[in-house]
């Protein structure tokens, strides 16, 4: 046996392999590819647009303006004394991260058809990179939020240390739902047509433009099963203070983790046939 500086890796190809054995290690060895895929998405997103990266600022600000003008004037929307634009914007930031990540991830595999059928890489990189490519938008959103807080004369409260936790939770929900839908989309393109409606319904089923206090008590348990309820409430609490939404936050974490695990198991089984059915 001759000696080489480094023993070459051995790849075993078999009819069935468990996702839990290979998947995550493989993801780590391909981290540079993840970087390039995110870099590609960022480069392309605002190519050949007039406003360019300014869209990352304009989108949430315009939405806030629209909701403030339309819904902000309706009496009876309970914001616990917070100015409505601020109330909405604090909800829109995690929501935008979630919904854009969801849409991007659910399209990522079909969009990556040309490379899926030609070269090996962990397929999970596609939805993951699609979500990561919206992280800069999240940071920009947080910066605008800080400006708005100053504008309305509200300080940054100590609860802000919880912000990353709820931002991460938004990403986990987005990754779970997006990865699952992305895998289903490979076989059934119905997903592509369904996602815009899903996002719309989900938006109104989450306490973004209104406060969850308007939900009747007997339906509250159902409402709280939506993991985005905990994300939005928690995020808003971290920014604006008030009563900590402990119970709903814990429920959301539980639901988010379940969704993510189910999505990963499904993905691991489905990815073997991606190249054949895409």
């Amino acid at each position, binding site marked *: 046996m001759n000696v080489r500086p480094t023993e070459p890796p051995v*790849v075993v190809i078999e009819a069935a392999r468990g996702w839990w054995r290979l998947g995550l290690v493989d993801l780590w060895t391909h981290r540079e590819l993840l*970087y390039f895929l995110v*870099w*590609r998405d960022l*480069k392309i997103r605002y190519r050949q647009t007039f406003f360019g990266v300014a869209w990352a600022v304009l989108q949430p600000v315009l939405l806030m303006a629209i909701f403030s003008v339309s819904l902000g004037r309706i009496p009876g929307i309970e914001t616990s004394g917070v100015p409505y634009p601020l109330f909405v914007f604090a909800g829109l930031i995690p929501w935008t991260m979630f919904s854009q990540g969801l849409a991007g991830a659910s399209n990522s595999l079909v969009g990556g058809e040309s490379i899926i059928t030609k070269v090996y890489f962990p397929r999970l990189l596609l939805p993951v990179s699609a979500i990561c490519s919206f992280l800069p938008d999240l940071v920009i959103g947080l910066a605008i939020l800080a400006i708005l807080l100053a504008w309305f004369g509200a300080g940054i409260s100590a609860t802000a240390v919880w912000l990353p936790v709820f931002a991460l939770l938004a990403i986990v929900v987005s990754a779970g739902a997006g990865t699952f839908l992305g*895998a289903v989309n490979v076989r059934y393109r119905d997903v592509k047509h369904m996602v815009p409606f899903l996002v719309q319904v989900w938006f109104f089923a989450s306490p973004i433009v209104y406060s969850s206090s308007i939900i009747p008590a007997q339906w509250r348990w159902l409402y709280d099963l939506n993991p985005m309820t905990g994300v939005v409430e928690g995020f808003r609490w971290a920014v604006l203070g008030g009563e900590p939404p402990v119970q709903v936050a814990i429920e959301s974490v539980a639901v988010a983790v379940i969704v993510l695990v189910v999505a990963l198991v*499904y993905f691991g*089984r489905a990815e073997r046939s991606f190249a054949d059915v895409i």
Partner: protein
Amino acid sequence: MAEIAIRAAGLGKRYRIGVRRDPYSRLTESLWDAMARPLRRGDGQPKGSDFWALRDVSFEIPRGSAVGVIGRNGAGKTTLLKILSRVTTPTEGRAELHGRVGSLLEVGTGFHPELSGRENIFLSGAILGMRRAEILRHFDAIVDFADIGAFLDTPVKRYSSGMKVRLGFAVAAFLEPEIMFVDEVLAVGDAEFQKKCLGKMSEIGAGGRTVIFVSHSMPAVLRLCDRAILLDRGRVVTDGSTNHVVRTYLESDMGRTGERRWEDPSEAPGDAVARLKSVRVVPARGGTSDEVDIREPIDIEVEYSSEAPRDLRPSVNLHFFNEEGVCLFVTNDWNDQVWWVRSRRPGIVRAVCRIPGDFLAEGRVTVTAAVSTYDPTVVHAVEWEAVSFQVVDRTDGTGVRGIYAGDWPGVVRPMLEWHVALAERDTPDPSEPE
């Protein structure tokens, strides 16, 4: 005995074809079925018919050898390559790869049209498995090899197809895997660049790397590979020295792409209504041929046995593809209006379609033949890539391209009518009366 780089044992890949369901059960049953499928253990009960694209393929390849995989279209070459490069998983069997793997199944993998040449070098390199540091190290050499100099920062969507191919190959050429899979990518690009690529490929082989090379080009296989594997219908027919295997291939009818004939009806594509018997390329000068002159008309002749009841009107349709996979055109035998209205009887039907000369562009043309009935549309028999032939332009000055010998783009090359005359004179000719 040399160290083993690749060991394959009993590899097989099964595809399901012709799964048809009641359209109304789709939304409910089928959606659930599809979502549950990946969660099911094993394969469940097969619906529709199975098709083994690859079966019982075993071989061992020692480190540092270059092996050509040959066989006609549909023999399983690309499926084998896709399994070994882990694009898809086998249905059965096992393979081991000892070493870093790189695959080149396409030129320009991962290119994004909006990004510049410079950006695409990084993107494509990363997708093909290069590390950032490696790309940086080879960057200048890649640009040099691709010969795109001034266009480095131009979006790739503005590149000519030749430039795209050159850039794509250049990136791949600098991959440094220990095992490399190459699909027929050398069939593109101009002759000079092909030579350059072949040169680069033999360098790769000489560098102690293990190369598996799938190709239709026997000269390329003979030149690059010391060993070859001949596949037919998903199975290994011969495995041995390149000279021997290539000779076996060319002497069998497998090497003849201009004609397909099914002696045994049970193996022919078809169903109870229609079953293919043969598909042939017949140049106007007679015989069957794999190579036709660009100016010569050719007939595509399809024979099928028809058992159609009187009210069914099977018709033959042909899809023509070029080597980039672009569908050039589709044609259907109902353009023979006499035949189309005639009542049908069981028997052998021969349908001949004439392709005019001075119409197809140079290059390899692949024909898919099918027999269908319409309203509702049912495809009774289909043979993908049934026949193929090479269209050759001899450039002697009488053809479409005249005396111009350079690149002549276009998916077709029709000889069109031109009428050219002097419409208005700058100065009246004094010798001519008004």
